[in-house]
């Protein structure tokens, strides 16, 4: 269980995290989502007591992190910037961490096997590929068999096989009843891995919702209608807060009315409908929509939106 109470972090003039509150439940994978620079890594460093909050408080498993007598057994973390000395072997890196709470060498070997680094365990970490580094980071996180696991962008730079491996690993950890918090700037990845989402932008909470709800909201209220009587239906639907667009003959895209309502109007006026579909915006689009105002370095926004809507109309 992780709780953030009004966490705020300022670096000089810059506010990296602003009045952020959320809690992360055990038993499911929670995705921590936000564009680059949103404050995900900063928040995670505060959860681990590495950066002191300017104000607010972070609580992990009932206490602030620094108060745990056996932190590796409580929380396992992999931070975005590799926190590994490049001159040491993977085995010795893990052995040194394990020694701080008396974890035996046997467990070090277990996690090395678990992440599939057996063959390179005695090699210096400096020569590791990105993927091997991520695996070693995950091995460090799992070393103490912790109830809470915090991973910062674990799939960054991984090949599809590695991504699938992490996805299954995270789900497995959650299924064992652990609290799992994983950050990402990729909505599509989180949709496949997480059950719950905490979305932030510019250091502020934007959404705290289940993936299912998020997807439902993301669908928005665009309904696609195909009918031979398009012009007649269009006139019937007209209302101040309803917009109807037509990109092709006989096809309407209606915003501001539910599909139920449109179906009812059509039936009342004996208009035959060939199609009546609530549109699913892609999650990535919904995410971009949600965080559009919170993106730190913005590409020309209109292009993004235009490209997105064309994509769904096609």
């Amino acid at each position, binding site marked *: 269980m992780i709780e953030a109470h009004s966490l705020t972090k300022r670096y000089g003039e810059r506010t990296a995290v602003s009045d952020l509150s959320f809690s992360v439940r055990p038993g499911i994978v929670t995705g921590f989502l936000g564009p680059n620079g949103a404050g995900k890594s900063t928040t995670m460093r505060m959860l681990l007591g590495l950066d002191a909050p300017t104000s607010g408080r972070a609580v992990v498993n009932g206490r602030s992190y620094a108060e745990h007598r056996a932190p590796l057994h409580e929380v396992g973390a992999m931070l975005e910037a590799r926190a590994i000395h490049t001159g040491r072997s993977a085995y010795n890196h893990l052995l040194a961490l394990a*020694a701080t709470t008396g974890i035996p060498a046997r467990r070090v070997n277990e996690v090395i096997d678990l992440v599939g680094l057996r063959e390179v365990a005695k090699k210096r970490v400096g020569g590791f590929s990105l993927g091997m580094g991520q695996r070693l980071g995950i091995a460090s996180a799992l070393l103490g068999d912790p109830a809470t696991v915090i991973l910062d962008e674990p799939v960054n730079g991984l090949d599809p096989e590695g991504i699938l491996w992490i996805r299954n690993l995270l789900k497995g950890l959650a299924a064992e009843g652990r609290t799992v918090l994983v950050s990402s700037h990729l909505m599509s990845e989180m949709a496949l891995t997480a059950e719950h989402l905490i979305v932030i932008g510019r250091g502020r909470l934007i959404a705290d919702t289940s993936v299912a709800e998020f997807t439902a909201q993301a669908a928005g209220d665009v309904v696609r209608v195909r009918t031979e009587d398009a012009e007649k239906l269009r006139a019937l639907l007209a209302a101040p807060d309803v917009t109807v667009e037509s990109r092709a003959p006989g096809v309407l895209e209606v915003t501001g009315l539910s599909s139920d309502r449109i179906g009812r109007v059509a039936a009342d006026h004996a208009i035959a409908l060939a199609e009546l579909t609530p549109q699913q915006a892609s999650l990535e689009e919904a995410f971009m929509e949600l965080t559009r105002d919170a993106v730190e370095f913005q590409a020309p926004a209109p292009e993004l939106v235009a490209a997105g809507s064309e994509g769904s109309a096609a």
Partner: protein
Amino acid sequence: MTTASLIPAAARGEVTQARVIHSEWIKLRSLRSTLFTLLAAVLAMIGLGLLFSYFTADRWAHLPADEKAHFDPTLVSLRGFYLAQLAVGVLGVLVVSGEYATGMIRASLSAVPRRLPVLWAKALVYGVVAWVLTTAASLVAFLIGQAAMSGHHLGTSLSAPGVVRAVLGAGLYLTVVGLLGVAFGALIRNTAGGIATVFGVLLVLPVLAEALPSSWFQNINPYLPSTAGQGLLHIHQEPHTLAPWTGFAFFCLYALIALAGAGVALKRRDA
């Protein structure tokens, strides 16, 4: 299916200072830079001691009278300390700054969130390793150096007054240089900056002090870290210096102040 065997509650140990010391020992011995740097210190101590001893004896007949009058065969054989202190100081800095450079410090401090045990363990482990090796190297350098000078009947022995103090003193001085390195590594968190500071304090301050008017110099010189610390190596007390152990006590005090400052900084700053 994912996580191998689970650790039972009874086997979940707490973080203790002793365990952190063990962890730091694993860290120190598992880096190649440790081996190379310490080897360099030992070789400098013994090799330069031999060279200085051999050439001093060789040139003895041509030395000016006042140099002969101040001749200190123990110090000559321990001259390698000057180079050895570079290696020992650099490694002291690296013990901490290497973790900042690679990001390892975040792993170390999340494993030991109270933080200070990490600094104390680093200082202790590195201090003990440096002390054992440099003391042994100092003894070997002394014995080989005296052997090289004995042909010219210039050598001294461990039983002569002050000699044991000087031989052990070289190891002690180098150990404290190493601790200064650890402290500045933690204060400055950057390898180049840490090294520059340590040697600024040890090598540059004395040079700057010499530029002062001589009455100032005479008052300040005894308390300069290098002068105070190196007094132990001189059989005969130099002018404008403190008594050997008094000077060394000051040197230790400086190192302790630096370490305390490092502790405060480590506790306060974001990792």
